[in-house]
Structure formats: C-alpha cells, structure tokens
C-alpha cells in the first residue's frame, strides 16, 4: 500500500467517525425522541462555525474583505469545547421556540425554514461568519506534522470522540430517560397524562443531540480546515438520514453500521465506478445522492426498521 492509499483509508475512517457522531446525535433527536429535525445539519454548522472562530486568529487587519466574529485563537480542545457549548445554547433557544407547540410535519417544516433562513443570513451578512467563503485556516491538532502522522492523530481523536458519543447516547437510550423519550415519541398525550413534562424531555434530547452535532461540526471544521456555506446545504442531511434508516433507527449500533454503509460504501465506492465515456466525472456527486436516495427508499419499502432494528427493553423476570 502506498502512502496515498493509507491516507485515503484513514480519510474514510475519519469520515465514518465524524458522520457517525453526527448520526448518533441525529438518531437521539429523530428516532429516540421523535423530533423530526431534518435541519440537523444546521446544528452541525453552528458547531463548525463557532469552533472555527474560536480556533483561528482575528481577521488580518489589512484585509478589507474578510470579516467574522470571534478569532480567539484558542488551542485544542478549548476551541472544540467552545463550539459544543455554543451549539447546545443554540439548540436550547431553538428548542424552546420550535418544540413548544409544533409537532411532526409542522415541526419539520419550521426547522427546515429556519435552516434556510440561517443560510441566507450567514451568506448575506458577511460580518458574522465571513459570508459564502466562510472560515478558513482552522488548525487541527497535530496539523503541522507530516501528513500520515497528522492524519493518524486526527483519526485517534475522531475515534475517541465517537466512542464517547456512543457511550453517552447508549447510557441515555438504556435509561429511564430513554424509555420516557420513546414513550413521548409514541404518544405524547398519554405520556403527559402520566405526569411526564414532555417539553422538558424533548428539550433535553434536543440539547444533547445538539451538543453532539456541535462536536461533529467542530471536528469537521478542523478536519477540512474550514467551513463554508456549501458544507451545510440541506442535502448534507441526506447522508445522516440514510445512515439511520439503513442502519436502524433507534439502535445506536445500527446507526454506526448505517454510517459505515452510507459513508464508506456509497460516498467513496462510487468514486471508483467505471463510467461510460459520455458521462462527465462531475456527475459523480449527483450519482452519490441518487444512490443514497434509492437506498433510503428501498429500505423504507422493504425493511423500514433498518439492518439492526430497535430492541425491546430487557427486564429480568421476577416471580413471587
């Protein structure tokens, strides 16, 4: 294996880890709590931007074009923690507004609208996050080392972050909190009649899912060296949606499996597809989206529970 192939393999693994983190957070909101947040990518973006502005220095003084807030030049992990904290705060505010009265379809529509609105805001008001160009030059830990070493270090960080995220969502899923969230997902009225303060439960899932999105976003920003408005178009949510539908909604291990399928196989394998001469290579990203879409539809049709379905809660039997 050449150096190139090693780096390529590590790249795929890193993308699986980062998408896996985002998918786990998305799963917590969507599958566990029943919050149809198709605008999850917006929370990832908040994490990416805020981590970015914490990591880079202030805009160069002679530069009349580049504007953004922040520029604290904090080292890892403080920039990342800042990004996560900002995303949690954003998710709390967003949740308080959106989750109070909206459900299902209306909630999904409202969140998507907010996503579009935020996109336009960031792109046109260039003072916030430098408009369409976005934040560039975001450093990664170990970034100044030779390519293979820096990639390996980042892979290590990504794996640890994935493991921590997995542990976190696992604990929540298998706790009475997870059970209450599922109950609220199934029937909010019945859950409320038992005395469950459903708004608080949903807000908790939304905020934790948001924090996880912030973690993924911050790591993405470091990995890519920056974040711009094209990185969070609504269709970027598609890979996450594919991950949980293919892998298994409501099953954390399933979500990881789904991420491996969605990211590893589809996004990367299609790069190697032999195309007839007539079709230009620029079509490949569209083909990837089509392939993901087709897989989502196929699974919803044939196996809606996904590869690894949501499990029944196991209890010991107590006889008297």
């Amino acid at each position, binding site marked *: 294996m050449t150096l190139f192939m090693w780096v390529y393999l590590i790249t795929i693994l890193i993308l699986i880890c980062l998408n896996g983190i985002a998918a786990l957070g998305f799963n917590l909101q969507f599958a566990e709590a029943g919050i149809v947040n198709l605008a999850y990518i917006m929370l990832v973006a908040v994490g990416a931007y805020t981590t970015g502005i914490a990591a880079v220095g202030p805009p160069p003084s002679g530069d009349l074009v580049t504007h953004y807030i922040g520029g604290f030049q904090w080292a890892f992990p403080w920039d990342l923690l800042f990004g996560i904290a900002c995303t949690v705060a954003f998710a709390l505010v967003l949740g308080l507004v959106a989750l109070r009265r909206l459900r299902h379809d209306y909630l999904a529509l409202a969140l998507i609208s907010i996503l579009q609105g935020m996109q336009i805001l960031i792109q046109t008001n260039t003072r916030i996050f430098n408009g369409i160009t976005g934040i560039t030059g975001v450093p990664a830990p170990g970034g100044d080392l030779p390519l293979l070493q820096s990639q390996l270090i980042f892979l290590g960080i990504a794996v640890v972050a994935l493991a921590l995220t997995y542990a*976190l969502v696992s*604990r*929540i899923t298998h*706790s*009475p*909190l*997870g*059970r*209450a969230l*599922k*109950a609220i997902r*199934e*029937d909010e*009225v*019945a*859950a*409320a*009649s*038992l*005395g*469950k*303060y*459903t708004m608080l*439960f949903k807000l*908790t899932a939304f905020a*934790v899912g948001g924090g996880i999105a912030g973690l993924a976003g911050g790591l993405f920003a470091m990995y890519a060296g920056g974040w711009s408005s094209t990185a969070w178009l609504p269709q970027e949510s598609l890979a996450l949606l594919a991950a949980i539908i293919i892998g298994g909604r409501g099953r954390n291990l399933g979500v990881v499996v789904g991420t491996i399928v969605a990211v590893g196989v589809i996004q990367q394998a299609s790069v190697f597809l032999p195309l007839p001469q007539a079709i230009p290579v620029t079509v490949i990203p569209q083909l990837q989206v089509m392939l993901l879409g087709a897989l989502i539809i196929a699974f919803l049709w044939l196996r809606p529970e996904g590869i690894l379905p*949501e499990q*029944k*809660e196991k*209890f*010991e*039997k*107590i*006889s*008297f």
Partner: protein
Amino acid sequence: MSSETNQAALEVRNLSCSFSGLQAVRNVSFNVEPGTFVGLIGPNGAGKTTLLECVSGHNRNHGGRVFLGGNETTKWPPHKIGSLGVIRTFQVARPFAKLTILSNLMTGPRNQKGETLLPAILGGWRQEQREFLQGAWSWLRRFELEDAANSYGGELSGGQERLAELSRAMMAEPTTLLLDEPFAGVSPVNRLRLAEYLQKISHERSLTVLMVEHRLEFIEKLCSRVLVMAEGEIIADGGMTEIRRDKRVLEAYLGVA
C-alpha cells in the same frame, strides 16, 4: 391520607365548555370526596368525556374552576395534573405501541430518578428501577398479562390493552383516577376481572375514582354515588337506586315524559 383533611379530592365549580359551537358542558358544579368511587353516566353526547377532559387538563378551553386535592388546577396542562397523582385513562386505550408491555408499565411511576439527564448518564437509578419492576410484575400477574410482558403494546387485544393501560396508570401511584369508559371493548370475561380489580384496588388504596361508563351493571357494582349528565348538565346525583327512579333520568335516557 385523604381523611386527614376535609378537602374534596375533586371540586368543579361552574364549569362550562363549548367546542365546535356546541355547549358541551353547562355550568356544572360538584364535589367528589376522597376515597369515593363516583360514576358519571348519561346518554351519548351528554358531555361526560368533555367534562373529564376539562378536569384532566386535556381541554383548557373552558370557563369555571377546577380544584384537585385543594389545588386550583383550572388552567393546568395535563402533565402538571398527572404529576399531582391524578391519572386519567382514555376512551380508546392508549398503550405505547412500540414499547413492550413491561416497558409500558415501567413508564408509569412518576419522578423516576433515571429520567433526568445527569442521573441517566452517571447512573444510580438501578435500585429504584428494580423496585418499580417488582411492582410491574405484580400488576401483570394480577391481570394475567405475564405472558404478554414482552409483547409490543400494539400487539394486544382490546381487553388486554385496557388492563395494561390501567396497570400503567396504577404504577404512577395515583391518588385519583379518571376513567373514561374502561369497560368498552373488553371481553365479558375480562370485564368481570376488571370490575373485580377496580373494586379491590379502590378499597385497598383509598383511591378516589371518577368513572365515565355506559354499562350500568358496573356502575351499580362499583359506584357509591352516581352523577347523571344530559345535554351538558347534571340532572341527578345520588345512589343507583334513587337514580333509577328519577324522572329526569328516565326522560333523558328513554325520552319518557
């Protein structure tokens, strides 16, 4: 215990409620003493379920006042009323379809330690859950639902759903139960079982029960007091024997002058 205070378990004052342009409840007032089993009967469309929903907080579009155990709950949302221990069941049973029966029951208890974020992550809730689990298994045993423990809520028969929903409500350790036609859709065998259990548990725990029902044989068996509603008003209030002879009641049900 409820006998300590002279407070009514439920007090309704001048309750009026309309929806879709129809006055479903008209200026209704009554008290329910703690530990009593009160029936609420009346012809279809009398406003019984609407009244129940105004008490349980599911309908807050009403005039008048509601008090539960001395607390004014007039504009309270359902979860706040539920947290007081006033638990309602529904006309069509609502178990959580994609949770197992046992999981359903385990959602019942209020203020579980593991339901808040930090304890859920850090742990320390297992002991309490074990205690709840014992309670859950005993309810399953009582209602002969043990074999269905790991079936999904959506897989049960109508009668089983009803019993499961009631067990789930009991897991919340209610002080007051608001039951909406608990015998509807239940097989004759399960009905007898249900009636037996309602009688038993209401005595054992000094539960206050307000039960909307059409099946008068169960009202007679279980209720010491019956409220009769027709066209949004309470037209009679007393024991079953008096009610049977009440002219207004007969008129409302049978249209007899």
